[in-house]
């Protein structure tokens, strides 16, 4: 194992008496497509929120590319290369699809401070924006306001805005939630393709076990804020503790989507 992209040291978080992260020691290696799974309330979203700066860290340390980022504000983490998408669509509603993607591109390239220059004259920005829209297959909708998009397209845009920050490490929080099967396949193909290109390392939180096992090279199973199991899909599938948790706590979770 080389230098990890991101690592945590005894990362903990409590909401009152509920523990959502307990002494988590994690390493994310570059280029390994990782999934985080676990029953509801296992601390998956909390983990992402802590790593990306959405939640302040109560205890423990986070390092990114060797640098301590535990107390770094969100936008600086984004600038360093950590970004995320959201479980509930969280875009810029009144702006067009293209404008949604432009904001992260502008911020990343330091061009967002230009107050007098015309947006329409920023040709490099336009090209880059279109390239990102192409990646999430939203180019035909470029001038549509985000509010007018279908749910599936909104999810694509959600991922598109996160991608446009050109992160080295990208967390996707249930990217396919509420999508129909066609859209889901399209998005997953896109993610696979992007992961293969190797510019970003993806960490995906998912409920759909088909997705998780077909997509991931590594799976982390969380349970009550602790790591229950961490390994290849085969390891996880064979793990007795994982079965116990899923069968004991929530029978339907592991098999829910198979039935659809």
């Amino acid at each position: 194992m080389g230098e990890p992209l991101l690592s945590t040291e005894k990362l903990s978080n409590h909401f009152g008496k509920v523990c959502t992260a307990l002494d988590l020691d994690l390493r994310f290696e570059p280029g390994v497509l990782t999934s985080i799974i676990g029953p509801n309330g296992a601390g998956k979203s909390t983990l992402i929120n802590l790593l990306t700066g959405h939640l302040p860290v109560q205890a423990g340390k986070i390092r990114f590319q060797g640098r301590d980022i535990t107390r770094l504000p969100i936008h600086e983490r984004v600038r360093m290369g950590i970004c995320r998408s959201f479980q509930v669509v969280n875009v810029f509603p009144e702006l067009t699809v293209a404008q949604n993607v432009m904001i992260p591109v502008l911020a990343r390239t330091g061009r967002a401070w230009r107050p007098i220059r015309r947006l329409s004259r920023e040709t490099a920005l336009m090209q880059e924006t279109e390239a990102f829209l192409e990646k999430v297959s939203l180019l035909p909708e470029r001038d549509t306001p985000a509010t007018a998009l279908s749910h599936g397209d909104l999810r694509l845009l959600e991922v598109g805005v996160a991608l446009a920050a050109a992160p080295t490490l990208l967390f996707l929080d249930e990217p396919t939630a509420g999508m129909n099967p066609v859209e889901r396949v399209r998005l997953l193909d896109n993610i696979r393709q992007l992961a293969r290109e190797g510019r970003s390392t993806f960490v995906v939180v998912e409920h759909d076990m088909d997705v998780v096992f077909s997509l991931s090279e590594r799976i982390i199973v969380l349970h009550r804020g602790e790591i229950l199991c961490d390994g290849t899909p085969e390891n996880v599938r064979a793990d007795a503790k994982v079965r116990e948790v899923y069968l004991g706590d929530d029978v339907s979770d592991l098999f829910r989507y198979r039935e659809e």
Partner: protein
Amino acid sequence: MKAETRNAVAAGAVLLALCAVPFITGKFTAYLTIRIMLLGIFAVGYNLLLGQTGLLSFGHGAFYAAGAYGLGLFGVHVSTHPLLGVAVGVAAAVLLALLVGYLCVRHTEIYFAMLTLACGMMVFSLVWNAREITGGDDGLIGIVRAPITLFGLADIPIARENHFYFFVLFFFALSVWAAHRIRRSPFGLALAGIRENARRSEFAGVPVRRYRLAAFVLSGAFAGLAGALEALLESNARPFMAHWTHSAEPVLVSLLGGLSSLTGPLVGGAIFVAMREIIQRFTENWMLWFGILLLVIILGFRGGVVGTVSALFRKATAPGEG
């Protein structure tokens, strides 16, 4: 492109009409037009904060006053050069906005509004009480409209109303142009992103607080410009420029005209000044009637006058779209 050409033609027509005003109308109309332009500068800048960035400030009167007193004090003690005076007034407003903004932008919504209100009223009482410097409740008097000397090459007199009218028109056009460009710029888009979704803006890599501060200071600069020009117009600066009732003017004007366009606050400003003049002829309690009018417009015209009219216009020109 087509819409852009149409807007440019419309802007040109309005500019021409404004140029014609002092020649074809009486002194009083010209004076009212100046007041409309001053309120226009104030409101157009203010709307960069409210309409574009989504921050409601109740303290911009303080920056207006900073512009007026900045120019006034500079004029009384240092130099009466109007351009230098305006520059000093704007600089004073920017400095004050930096200070107030730095304290206020860490909060949003109602907390932000109340903090700006508190800061504005502090400035008001400071101006009111510092009688030796500001003249207290008498205001700062003795501000003169000296001619603009351009490096000894030319003297442009602005003492006469007609000349001063064009002095104001110049700054008005400049302000509207600047606000237009800012709204269409990368910076303007970043501000709109903050208005639409501040959290996501952070995750897009935008340092939200710094951008909010920038928008705050920018709108403060416009307020300062308007204040400096008013000091020249009225030959005085008054503490009530910093009062919260004055801070509420650009809010009302923006709501009246519509928050989401450049022209909204301008049209709102024109309506505001005209209504005040008309209603004041009939009754002392003009605010009562103005309040009723505002109520009707806010309830009846969604998106302000400009928003409603342009929506009607779109409907009329594109009947195919339901």
